[in-house]
């Protein structure tokens, strides 16, 4: 007898393969078929069987003989009255049809007895409905029988065989139900609830399909090969069926199955597999209209066959009502499903709207903090107002690699940044990526993030705070902390929203990084250009330096001779005119020599030797040693703050540069007043040494070429023209700038700008020690 205690517990699933094998092995534990059915199968599979033996065997059981004859009459209604014995049935409907009728009756009885033995009763709770199952099987059987008769398969496939194949096509499910009644009930409920096929539900819960189980049972019972293949392959698309002799029969049963389901003659949970009638009809070369006609009287036929098989006799309209009832149930479920889909669509619409508004609020080039603010505003819009904060990775470029600093941003009720704090989690703390989605900030979590409570202590009840990680393809871009209960929305919608936020934050971060890189690149390019220019200047100066050094040696020796001999002449000549000429020779030779020396000095690198320098003293000395014209009415106004700290400069170089600026101012035409001002520019702490005169100013040509060596706007008798060029070299050696421009009210303004001029304590100490 069947042992129901062997049903598999749902809570302890076995590994898939052993579990399935265990189930399939249980099939062997099922009782065998009735002795007559077994004998009929044995005889018909024997090479030497004789029809008389089978007829005699069926005739030995009058009840069986009577039911078989009734079934045979149903097969061929035109001759139903002439079928009065098994022999005549064989004569009229064929031996195979009679054999199928016998097996139908015997197998139905077999399972009916198992039902009776197990005390099973039909339940109406939505799980397995045996009566509905048999009605469906009968409907498929009757339809298959009819379809064979109207198809061109009736030559190779007898109607009785089609009937048996239709009746047993879901044998596997019946067998599974006998073996695992609770599991198959769950299968039915799962299929019903989720709108999936019984096969899919079976596979998910039990781990095997009704096809496999049915095939194993058919093999065990040695059912005809065609029946076994129908059980195994029915429901598959016609094109994918193997080239079997009974391929057509399999397709007929599949079509009958679809037709029966279409008329709601189906047990609960037996959903349509999605095949279309027209496809199968086309494959079998059947006229769809004829097929529909064949199915028109289905409920009456099913009732008649059910009566023959011994199922409770009910009027055929009862089956029709039950079909209508099932159709109504399906409609109700469809309505429920649509209502659910409508609710989901409304929620999705809200989410999409929130995403749309969030995207609308974005602007090109938004900073990360601006995007974070918009995320907070979007969250408030979606979840309602409350406490909101955000944990972000702190990507400050100065951050050491081993530190994982975070930024904690808290928001106002409007979603604007309230305050931002840089957080340094202790080593071993959870990272952003470790934080579980939606987890409340429980005491346990707080123990893992003890530092976080320190920051949130004033904000809200930390027990209410939940974490919502914002993930996207880049990883976790941040964690939103909030105290709002999330509305009952589909998880995927949250994901869509949070992924959108995270992607925007990541994109902004990338954009910000790219912008910073672009700026760095531009700065680097600028430096390269400046360095290249500097290099070219240096190379030019170096070449010039070599030339000047060689020239100095080659020219100073003759100049020495000229100068020396001229001095001797001066000493010896009595004629004053001649002596004056000799003196002139000597002076000019010295002038040429000075020019060579100045040029050589100009081409040498001006490395400053810095020391702490009193700027007031430097300025005073520059003015004191300024060579002024013998008769002048110049007024030099010096403005130097008393509180100027000592400057870390090469006093000699800067004093030389300043002297050159002063000399240019003094020599400028029409100059009466010179203002020398030394001050610190507050915004960038630059030292500014400015010489302003009230002369005629500088023309464009002079402004353009003022720093060129040997350039001078002055007439004959001028200086070598290296003063400003040399001054600029000294200032640039201090990494400063020397600018020259005309004043707004006339005159010229020359300014020395020094960025790095302050002494630090170490420099002062080292100088003091020296």
């Amino acid at each position, binding site marked *: 007898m069947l042992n129901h205690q062997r049903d598999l517990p749902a809570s302890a699933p076995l590994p898939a393969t052993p579990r399935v094998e265990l189930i399939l092995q249980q099939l062997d534990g099922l009782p065998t078929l009735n002795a007559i059915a077994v004998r009929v199968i044995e005889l018909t599979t024997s090479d030497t069987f004789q029809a008389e033996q089978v007829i005699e065997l069926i005739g030995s059981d009058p009840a069986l003989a009577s039911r078989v004859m009734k079934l045979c009459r149903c097969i061929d209604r035109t001759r139903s009255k002439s079928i009065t014995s098994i022999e005549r049935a064989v004569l009229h409907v064929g031996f195979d049809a009679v054999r199928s009728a016998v097996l139908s009756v015997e197998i139905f009885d077999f399972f009916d007895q198992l039902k009776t033995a197990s005390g099973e009763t039909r339940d109406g709770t939505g799980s397995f409905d045996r009566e509905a199952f048999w009605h469906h099987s009968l409907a498929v059987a009757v339809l298959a029988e009819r379809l064979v008769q109207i198809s061109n398969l009736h030559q190779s496939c007898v109607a009785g065989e089609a009937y048996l194949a239709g009746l047993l096509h879901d044998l596997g499910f019946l067998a599974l139900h006998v073996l695992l009644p609770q599991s198959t009930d769950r299968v039915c409920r799962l299929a019903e609830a989720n709108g999936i096929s019984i096969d899919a539900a079976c596979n998910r819960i039990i781990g095997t399909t009704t096809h496999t189980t049915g095939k194993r049972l058919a093999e065990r019972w040695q059912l005809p090969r065609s029946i076994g293949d129908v059980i195994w392959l029915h429901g598959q698309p016609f094109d994918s069926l193997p080239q079997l002799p009974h391929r057509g029969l399999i397709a007929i049963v599949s079509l009958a199955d679809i037709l029966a389901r279409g008329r709601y003659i189906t047990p609960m949970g037996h959903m349509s597999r999605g095949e279309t009638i027209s496809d199968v009809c086309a494959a079998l070369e059947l006229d769809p209209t004829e097929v529909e006609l064949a199915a028109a009287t289905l409920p009456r036929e099913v009732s008649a066959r059910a009566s023959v098989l011994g199922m409770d006799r009910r009027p055929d309209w009862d089956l029709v009502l039950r079909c209508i009832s099932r159709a109504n149930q399906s409609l109700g479920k469809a309505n429920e499903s649509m209502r659910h889909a409508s609710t989901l669509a409304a929620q999705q619409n809200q989410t999409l709207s929130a995403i749309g508004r969030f995207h609308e609020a974005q602007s090109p080039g938004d900073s990360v903090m601006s995007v974070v603010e918009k995320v907070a505003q979007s969250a408030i819009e979606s979840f309602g107002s409350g406490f909101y904060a955000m944990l972000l990775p702190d990507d400050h470029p100065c951050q050491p690699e081993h530190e994982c600093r975070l930024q904690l941003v808290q928001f106002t009720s409007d979603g604007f940044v309230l305050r931002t704090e840089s957080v340094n989690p202790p080593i071993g703390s959870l990272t952003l990526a470790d934080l579980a989605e939606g987890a409340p900030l429980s005491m346990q979590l707080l123990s893992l993030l003890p530092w976080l409570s320190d920051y949130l202590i004033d904000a809200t009840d930390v027990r209410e705070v939940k974490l919502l990680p914002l993930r996207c393809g880049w990883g976790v871009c941040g964690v939103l902390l909030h105290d709002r209960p999330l509305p009952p929305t589909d998880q995927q919608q949250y994901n869509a929203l949070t992924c959108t936020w995270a992607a925007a934050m990541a994109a902004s971060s990338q954009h910000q990084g790219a912008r910073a890189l672009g700026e760095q690149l531009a700065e680097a390019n600028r430096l390269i250009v400046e360095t290249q220019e500097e290099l070219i200047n240096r190379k030019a100066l170096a070449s010039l330096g070599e030339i000047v050094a060689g020239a100095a040696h080659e020219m100073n020796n003759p100049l020495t001779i000229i100068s020396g001999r001229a001095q001797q002449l001066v000493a010896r000549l009595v004629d004053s005119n001649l002596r004056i000429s000799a003196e002139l020779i000597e002076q000019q030779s*010295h002038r040429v020599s000075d020019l060579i020396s100045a040029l050589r000095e100009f081409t040498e690198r001006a490395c400053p030797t810095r020391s702490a320098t009193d700027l007031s003293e430097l300025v005073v000395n520059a003015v004191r040693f300024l060579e002024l014209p013998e008769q002048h009415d110049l007024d030099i106004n010096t403005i130097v703050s008393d509180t100027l700290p000592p400057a870390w400069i090469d006093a000699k170089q800067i004093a030389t540069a300043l002297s050159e600026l002063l000399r240019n101012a003094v020599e400028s035409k029409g100059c009466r007043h010179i203002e020398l001002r030394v001050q610190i520019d507050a915004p960038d702490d630059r030292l500014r040494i400015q010489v302003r005169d009230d002369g005629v100013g500088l023309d464009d040509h002079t402004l353009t070429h003022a720093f060129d060596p040997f350039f001078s706007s002055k007439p004959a008798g001028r200086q070598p023209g290296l003063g400003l060029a040399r001054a600029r070299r000294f200032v640039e050696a201090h990494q400063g700038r020397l600018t020259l421009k005309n004043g707004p009210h006339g005159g010229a303004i020359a300014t020395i700008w020094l960025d790095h001029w302050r002494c630090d304590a170490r420099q002062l100490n080292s100088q003091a020690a020296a």
Partner: protein
Amino acid sequence: MAKNTRSSIWAEKQVFTTGEAAEICNVSQQTIIRCFDSGRLQGFRVPGSRFRRIPKADLLRFMKANDIPTEGLESGQKRILVVDDDTQIVDLFLDVLSRDDRFEVKAAKTGYDAGLLTEQFKPHLILLDYMLPDINGNLVCQRIKTNPETKGTKIIIVSGVVSQDEVDALGKAGADDFVKKPFNIEKLIDRVAELTEAQ
């Protein structure tokens, strides 16, 4: 006057007999011979005879070692060595310095010649061109100042192309002064006199 004449004669001579050395040192000839024979006074014997001869440098060394005044041997003029590869420059220096009685001047055109003359001439001061064809001035400076016999010699570097860094390096190498070409003759002579007077 006669002494001055004798001194000028002794100043010209490079090798002395024992009698001349005794007169210069104002000691007996026997004393000189004893010192010669004991090795305290360096010299040589004339080949093929037993006559003793004393080179001027050895005699001066002996006199200084025994605190004997050297005025008798020297003329009173300061010996100046001019080192420059430019003939015209050398001629200018010779012309200028030879006119001054205070100086006895010799010239060399290379570092090699300068080394030889320093050994022979024992100059009080060298006017040294920085850029010589065979050796740089700072190296000449260094060698003269590290030699115990010549370390007292004053050196004035004369050049038209030396930078301030090189002037500082020359100072460290032992140069006493630096004069840039072209120069003022009077100032140069004053400086030469100043440095040689200090010796």
